């Protein structure tokens, strides 16, 4: 297990390097000009100096290696400086956004909490809905509950989140006026009232994402539970007189959760990706919104860093899912 983990960790490094190169070359091939907004009256030599100031003068391999150095060396050094009060990163240039002229990671740190609360909450709630539904659907296969559950979850992952979000806004935000339709990022939770306001504004985006996740996870839960309920050891457990509750919730559920846990781990990065759309619908000022606005603004360092962070998330969670699978299921042997 340990050797497997170490081998996978070493494999992840070239994967990530390759992905960063792909993203970098894609951005490099783009015809967009970060100086497109500069007025035409600016003389060409000044324009040339502005390009050099943005670090665009060098050939692309130099800039790529420089970005790698900034991402993997300068930024971690800067964080250690922040935490331990040292000054290793003295004089080193951090990754700077073209758009806001401030370090990319500072902007990301500002936006991250919004995305994490909305995405995290929705994923947790989605799992909490999905697991009981999946268990019940499998336990009463082909019952009315199962058929309705199947139909609803089919609808759940057929309806795109941008449509469910807009419908929720029309119904609950506009007609019933229960929830605000625009997410207020400046709200600080200080007392009970502001907490209620926060809960109200989170309700709709979290519901949209939670339903979408619950639809997918409950399908997995159901099929995995069905697999286990027809196994011999369940019959044995029943035959030796265990209560039905113990058979289902202890014997069958524990074994059925193994593949579901890995699916949950694998799905997490995709949820971050899907949150891009939901954030746009509800105007949540998070990472997805940051990505889209920086794509519009040709903010190459920001786009590069954000996309790469998404890639890191995917690689990390794939690794976690593989390791979890091996840890939870002793039948799986990687070595």
């Amino acid at each position: 297990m340990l050797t497997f983990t170490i081998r996978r960790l070493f494999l992840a490094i070239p994967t990530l390097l390759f992905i960063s190169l792909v993203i970098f070359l894609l951005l490099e091939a783009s015809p967009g000009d970060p100086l497109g907004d500069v007025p035409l009256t600016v003389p060409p030599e000044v324009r040339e100096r502005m390009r050099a100031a943005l670090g665009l003068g060098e050939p692309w391999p130099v800039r790529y290696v420089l970005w790698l150095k900034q991402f993997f060396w300068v930024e971690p050094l800067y964080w250690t400086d922040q935490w331990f009060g040292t000054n290793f990163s003295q004089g080193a240039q951090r990754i700077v956004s073209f758009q806001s002229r401030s370090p990319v990671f500072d902007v990301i740190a500002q936006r991250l909490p919004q995305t994490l609360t909305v995405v995290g909450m929705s994923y947790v709630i989605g799992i909490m809905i999905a697991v009981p539904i999946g268990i019940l659907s499998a336990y009463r296969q082909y019952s009315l509950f199962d058929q309705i559950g199947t139909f609803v979850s089919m609808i759940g992952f057929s309806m795109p989140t941008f449509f469910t979000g807009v419908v929720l806004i029309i119904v609950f935000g506009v007609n019933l006026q229960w929830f605000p339709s625009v997410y207020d990022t400046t709200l600080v939770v200080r007392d009970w009232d502001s907490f209620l306001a926060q809960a109200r504004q989170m309700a709709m985006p979290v519901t949209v994402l939670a339903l979408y996740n619950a639809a997918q996870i409950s399908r997995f839960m159901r099929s995995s539970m069905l697999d286990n309920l027809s196994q011999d050891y369940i019959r044995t457990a029943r035959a030796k007189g265990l209560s039905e509750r113990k058979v289902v919730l202890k014997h069958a559920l524990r074994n059925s959760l193994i593949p579901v846990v890995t699916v949950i781990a694998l799905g997490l990065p995709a949820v971050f990706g899907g949150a891009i759309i939901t954030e746009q619908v509800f105007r949540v000022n998070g990472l997805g919104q940051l990505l889209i606005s920086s794509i519009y603004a040709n903010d190459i360092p920001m786009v590069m860093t954000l996309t790469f962070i998404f890639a890191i998330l995917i690689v990390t969670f794939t690794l976690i899912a593989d390791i979890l699978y091996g840890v939870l299921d002793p039948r799986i042997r990687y070595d």
Partner: protein
Amino acid sequence: MTEPTRTPSSDLAAAGGAATPAAASPPVVPAPETVAHRSQWSDVWRQFRRHRGAMVALSLFVGIILFVSIGPLLWRIDPTFVDIRARNQGFSLAHPLGTDQLGRDLLARLMAGGQVSIAVGLTAMTIAIFLGSLIGILSGFFRRLDAPLMRMTELFLALPLLPLLLLMVTLFREPLSQTFGPALGIFFLIVTAIGATSWMQAARIVRGEVLGLKEREFILAARSIGTPSHRMVTRHILPNVMSPIMVAATLGIATAIITESALSFLGLGFPPDFPTWGRLLFDAVDQMVLYPWRVIFPGLLISLTVLCVNYIGDGLRDAMDPRIRGR
């Protein structure tokens, strides 16, 4: 088909003297005929018809396709015709679903938008399935290609797809629309982008199937009579992996349609005067407080199409699974 066997010989005899020799052995003659008519696909179809949800979905999907393809021939209002005096109208006989903020007829726009959305879904799916099957078969059949191709598949699976799609579409829309014209250029771009980023699942499934097939006796037999590799693939491997490919293809249409609408919804899809369902939804969001229907209709059509395609895929999977079909 079984009727002749049940026919009493007296009837046949009454019909004419010529029928008497045939009537001597009635049960033997029709039996081979019925067997000859059974093929794998008719079996699949028979099983598919038993899946009620899939049949409803199939008829709805055919209905939607007819609506977007035949509809514009019957409802002859130009979807891009601007009639500023008739803007923001409600439901009426002249405009059954009303008009938008520029007075364009919503029904005509939904039909035109559906054509583009479904065309994008089908084309992107075709590209993805072609790539996926090619890579899957190559990597399953030729041992030397297996490791590099699967590493590549894993690399693609690790790419953050939605951000990359957004990136590709924004970066390359200008040059492509200059070479091919705004509509066709964006169509090529979106279709290629979606196709090139969604072939990985199909490749993995096909590879797994091919690996299993390769161990079977008929492959060994074909090899022992000296079948060359290319014919091996086209005659023996490909027909046998058709069913997982078809299921993956059906589900691929659904994801492609959703991805295209998502891109359009983020304002990064087709140009504004070129309706697709996602674009119609995006354009209507600004006025959803006053005219919620303009959001609901395209959204419903997207969801309904995707739901139908998903159900058809589900039914196909059941129908093609020989373990279930035997029952």
